[in-house]
């Protein structure tokens, strides 16, 4: 727990979010406070509709809060320009969407390479990096398949490869194992945990399963848009040991 002395990478104070659709106001987040330090592995849990995805989107620079402050590495995110936000999305974070959000009728390779199109890498390097990311999620044999020809689990793995491909220091994963069988789910958790432990990436994971959440170091629970608990994991599950056990 000596990590906790570090300056937080993410620090939110009284974050509120409401959606307005044709005069109908939906209040989703009612003032959330917490901070995440660099290298932390955090799991967010909570019932469906409690606002987990909404919160993740805000933290991932994809959506803006209605009120409250969001400091990223000490910088007030609301002060960033559009181009700075684009740069953050590209270099600081990888986002695994709950709904995958793959480009339709587009190959696995082209989907994974997408974030690299907005970097300075050469064409050859991009191809190389994308192939590695695809290999890491075990989809090399599907590399030229179109996204609509994939199973749910395969789509999820493409989404993960795309989030990893820029090697971002922070990875948001919104239920990344939701559609996977336990063995494939384990593979994903292994990748995430490895990124966290040996490469010191910050991971923020949303999950419904207590067991999956216990791969993290800390679990936050949301209910009706409020933070109801924030506690460290006492006995962290290590994905590598599980594979040993299963063998």
């Amino acid at each position, binding site marked *: 727990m000596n990590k906790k002395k570090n300056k937080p990478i993410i620090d939110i104070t009284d974050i509120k979010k409401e959606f307005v659709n044709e005069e109908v106001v939906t209040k989703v987040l009612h003032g959330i406070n917490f901070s995440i330090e660099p290298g932390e592995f955090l799991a967010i849990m909570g019932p469906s509709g409690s606002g987990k995805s909404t919160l993740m989107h805000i933290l991932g620079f994809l*959506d803006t809060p209605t009120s409250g402050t969001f400091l990223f590495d000490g910088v007030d995110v609301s002060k960033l320009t559009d181009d700075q936000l684009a740069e953050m999305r*590209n270099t600081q974070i990888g986002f695994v969407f709950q709904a995958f959000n793959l480009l*339709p*009728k587009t190959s696995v390779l082209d989907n994974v390479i997408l974030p690299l*199109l907005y970097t300075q890498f050469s*064409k050859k390097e991009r191809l190389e990096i994308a192939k590695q990311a695809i290999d890491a999620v075990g989809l090399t044999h599907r590399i030229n398949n179109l996204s609509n020809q994939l199973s749910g689990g395969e789509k999820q793995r493409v989404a993960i490869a795309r989030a990893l491909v820029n090697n971002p220091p922070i990875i948001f994963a919104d239920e990344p194992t939701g559609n996977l069988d336990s063995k494939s789910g384990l593979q994903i958790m292994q990748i995430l945990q490895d990124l966290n432990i040996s490469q010191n990436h910050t991971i923020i994971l949303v999950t419904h399963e207590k067991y999956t959440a216990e791969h993290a170091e800390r679990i936050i629970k949301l209910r009706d848009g409020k933070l109801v608990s924030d506690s460290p994991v006492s006995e962290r599950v290590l994905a590598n040991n599980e594979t040993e056990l299963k063998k």
Partner: protein
Amino acid sequence: MLVEHLSGTINNIRQNKTRAFLTMLGIIIGIAGVIMIISVGAGAQSIIINQVKDQGSNLLAIFPGNTDEEGPPAAVFGITITTLTNEDILSLKNSKRLQYVEDVSSYVQGTDTVSWKGHTAEATFIGSSYAVPNVESAAVEYGNFFTVEDEKSLQRVAVLGADIAENIFGDENPIGEKIKIEKHNFKIIGVMEKRGSSGFSNNDTNIYIPVTTAQKLLLGINHISFARVKISDESQIERTAEIIEEILKERHDIDIGGLADFDVKNQKDALDVLFSITNAITLFLTSIASIALLVGSIGIMNIMLVAVQERIREIGLRKAVGATKKDIFLQFLIETIFMTLIAGIVGILIGIAISYVIAIIVQSLNYEWHFSISTLSIILGAGVSGFIGLLSGIVPAIKAGKLNPIEALTYE
């Protein structure tokens, strides 16, 4: 960067074949349609103009009635004006001041029943001068045209157009036969060579008789419908027209500055009138083409708008992984320019090709169809379709530009 965008563009188009195809088809049809319609309009115009030109550019026509710079002479509207006589015209031939007048012919015309041995037909008889073969550059195939003496002594002689000769007499030789026009017998002394139609009238169904005979015997009038004057030196046609006007004004006791009661037109005037008609037709065709273009464009817009949702989601995703507004705008701009450009070029080529094929076909039918492609039609077609194409491509980019990535990703 640009090359990458372009290769990305080609990928994108490949991935959305149907949409790209339909959009491009809309543009292609729009442009090709406009080019084709306008080219066909110009071709049809050339047929009419050429037929008028065939009649010779060394002719002046004199009509009775007021001079009016604009529009056709009053006679066209069926108004009978009696201010011009055969004597007026004959005076032109003998005038010392008109050294370039080669020949003149007055004309009157009427329609009457013509009969021969029980055959009857409605035919147009033309009362004309003996000079018609020279003035109209028309040859007599059998027999002779009537002479100045026939004209002076009001002979009842007739020369048949090729078609009417064949209609009435079939294979038999008409020379020397007598036909009845109204109650009067006319002796046939000649048959014209086949001339084909010219302008809007068919000369091959005419029956030519001396103008004097037609006036006194058949019509009971002293005036003429119009006259033609053949000029020996084409370059003198304008000057000659002026002198004719002066002479006729003198004969009619009209001041030089006064309003004439006749109208001297050269072929250019006739062409101008025709041009004003055919230009109106071209304008009409152009407006039809424009409407077609507009409808096509709405089609393109529609296809693109249906695709907007999908495209906005794509934009949302691209933004979510780090694309800037500029990246997005550039991508869409290049994509639509690329598609519009290709479709535009194909459309222009197809438009020209179809117009050319039409020209070849019509020319093979022996019409003097002039193949031409107007720059205006290319600019109009390519401009409108291109504009709509670009617009429909950029609209999603602009729309999505206002949304944050999540709003774009969940856009409905």
